[in-house]
């Protein structure tokens, strides 16, 4: 009956319940607070309305009261803060073995590419019950990836990766909105997330792939001649990339950084920014020479060099049999 008049958004991810729980707690707290204020206002307004000959009784104030109504709200606020922080932290930390999807946003469309190689536009197919990590960047302005049913939102910023994740719990089709104003067709930059039962999802995955993203990346890696320096032994002019991803890297200036997606991205586009200890700054920049999609593929490839669990190889998609995995098991460090 109320099909067209929902009052509560659908709940289709593991995060949704956490967010809703906090939201309901907040509703109760603020509802009580509103009631307290409104009832006292109305009661005082009626009880102490002006009557001839009854003067107001002057009260200067009360320090104990002031302290009480500063400390108690502060205590409640701290509970809300801590709860909110926990929920936030959970949804900011992708689990280790997530399936990965690369998202490239542009005015006004979402381009999504599964690690297994399937490409989609404005539509994302995911299975129920699996962690999906989104590695997102924008080609132009800031966008924002918002799925109300998952209670998940992350701005998509040009020039870097931002990351989000979810685990869908219910099959169905859900809205995908862009929530960061991005120009004329901002409200048209919408799409859908199709959550499927695992079996259906496998069926869907078996069609139309160009091979895994990491394989595409490997091809690009070879075409661009990266392998001449980044050799899989220790003789190269550039660091050996085997097993680098996800590990700390010691830099020339003594800093220690984690080799995450943004690190790989920066090292390709602005190689001089972070020089690995023991190497010389000889790598040319690839800024402007490769597209965001190619960059994603390279990142996926570098990731795949750090063994399974990082790339999409653990999904048993038929088309995704790794064609080659150079230097398997030769992980240095």
């Amino acid at each position, binding site marked *: 009956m109320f099909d067209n008049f929902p009052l509560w958004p659908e709940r289709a991810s593991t995060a949704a319940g956490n967010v809703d729980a906090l939201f309901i707690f907040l509703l109760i707290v603020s509802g009580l607070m*509103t009631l307290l204020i409104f009832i006292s*206002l109305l009661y005082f307004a009626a009880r*102490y309305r002006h009557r001839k000959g009854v003067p107001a009784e*002057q009260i200067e*104030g009360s320090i104990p009261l002031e302290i009480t109504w500063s400390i108690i709200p502060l205590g409640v606020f701290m509970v809300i803060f801590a709860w*909110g922080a926990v929920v936030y932290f959970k949804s900011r930390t992708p689990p280790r073995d997530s399936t990965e999807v690369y998202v490239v946003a542009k005015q006004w469309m979402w381009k999504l590419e599964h690690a297994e190689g399937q490409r989609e536009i404005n539509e994302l197919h995911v299975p129920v019950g699996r962690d999906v990590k989104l590695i997102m960047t924008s080609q132009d302005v800031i966008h924002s990836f918002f799925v109300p049913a998952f209670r998940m939102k992350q701005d998509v910023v*040009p020039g870097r990766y931002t990351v989000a994740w979810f685990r869908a719990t219910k099959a169905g089709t859900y809205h995908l*909105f862009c929530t960061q104003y991005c120009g004329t067709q901002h*409200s048209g930059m919408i799409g859908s997330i199709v959550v499927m039962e695992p079996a259906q999802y496998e069926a869907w995955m078996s069609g139309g792939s160009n091979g895994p993203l990491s394989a595409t990346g490997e091809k690009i890696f070879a075409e661009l001649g990266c392998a001449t320096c980044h050799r899989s032994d220790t003789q190269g002019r550039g660091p050996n990339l085997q097993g680098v991803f996800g590990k700390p890297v010691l830099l020339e200036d003594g800093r220690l950084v984690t080799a995450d997606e943004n690190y790989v991205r920066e090292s390709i586009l602005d190689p001089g920014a972070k020089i690995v200890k023991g190497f010389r700054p000889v790598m040319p920049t690839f800024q402007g020479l490769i597209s965001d999609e190619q960059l994603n593929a390279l990142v996926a490839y570098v990731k795949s060099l750090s063994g399974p669990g990082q790339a999409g190889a653990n999904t048993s998609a038929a088309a995704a049999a790794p064609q080659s995995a150079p230097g398997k098991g030769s992980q240095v460090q």
Partner: protein
Amino acid sequence: MSMATATVQPVERENYLNKHYGVGSWLFTTDHKRIALLYLLSITFFFFIGGFFALLIRLELLTPAGDLVQADTYNKLFTQHGQVMVFFFLIPSIPAVLGNFLVPMMVGAKDLAFPKINLLSWYLYIIAGIMMLHCMLTGGVDTGWTFYTPFSTAFSNTKVIEAGLSIFVAGFSSILTGLNFVVTIHRMRAPGMTWGRLPLFIWAHYATSIIQILGTPVIAITLVLVVAERALHLGIFDPKLGGDPLLFQHLFWFYSHPAVYIMILPSMGVVTEIIACFSRKRIFGYSFVALSSIAIAVFGFLVWAHHMFVAGISVYAALIFSILSYAVAVPSAVKVFNWTATLYKGSIHYDAPMLYAFGFVGLFTMGGLTGLFLAALGVDMHVHDTYFVIAHFHYIMVGGALMGYLGGMHFWWPKISGKLYPEGWARLAALIVFLGFNLTFFPQFILGYLGMPRRYYQYPPEFQILNVLSTAGATVLAVGYLLPMIYFLWSMRYGKPAPDNPWHAAGLEWKTPSPPPTFNFEQEPVVTWEAYNYDEIDAAAAPQEVPVVG
């Protein structure tokens, strides 16, 4: 207060309105009261422009499809609605009109410390306003009032530079007003007017001025950078050239979050005056209300990145800004509790200003409490940039700031114009505004939690019913805003002459004639009483009812 017979014009005393005539006497005036009226006219003009945009926005959203205007037009409408309402109405509203009129009188001075700078600030406002109007008439701007980069610097093909410069100039108008207030409050107080005796309206304006002085320059320089970046492609905010778009957001919100307090603090000051007067009581916990204003101003500077929780800032920074955001909620809560406690054992009158004050406390409470939702990291992930945010800040800025502004206009109208407004109509208008407001904006909380993003020109059909409710509310609200406009104008011609102190209110401004003479006080006042001495006033005013004690 009916049946105004305005045929007999008694011989008027010389006052600031009738002392000089002619356009020149207004355009070159340095009288703070006349400048306040100049501001009143100008901000009312911009209020109706912004309101007109708002109505068009609401009409467009009546249906899910984009059918009334083009997408680009819609984007310009919400952008300029925001810019006009924030920079040309709300920020100058109470400070530049009521503050300008009242601050010197309340502290017992003849004028603000720098009358010429005060006039200059109005001219800057007008120059900025003309630039903004010109920008609108020649194509407008579509970046959203937030000017987010790199959209504003590299992608929008509208008049970003002109709009940016306009707001830059408006910012200096605001800075000069704040500077004038701080110096006036420090240096121009009448003998006996100690800090502890200042009306809380003054404390609120003092706090507001701190934000204007220290926050506004940062947005000014940020806009300079945006304009330079757009004109010359410098790369400061453009990731394609090595810049960081989030730096813009940091700099922008460093001002624009405290700017919310520029809007709400003066309103809190107004409401404090009204509540004390119409419950005939001293304010409960004077020093806590005063210090909470200062605390809000200071803490307000520490919380800006709660607008950026999902923008890609570090998780740790988000934690810091979330916890600091709760710190600023405490002084706001303290104020609400103190207002409520002031009513206790009062002698409450229900005149129109008091109705607005009640409305303010109610709506501000709801606006403030929904702020807790947004400061909670976990919930903000979901409701950020949805209609929940829109509803929240309209509860603060329209429900709060505008309610206070209207309440203040009613309260001090007899002083400003020398005429009484029609009380019955005023109460009706207060009621209409309150109901219309809630009908407009409450559905937007639900829309927001359902996930409707802000700045959407078309939307999925399941959001329609709530949007229709909201639009219906907006038309009611429009009536509520037009009414005071009409009867204020009416009262200037036909209203009954106001006595010097129609509310038997405390405060130095009521010790002047209505309307006041050019230099406010015939003799420099000497203050020997505490603020809000309503017990003494009532005791003196009603000797036949209550035996005079002292």
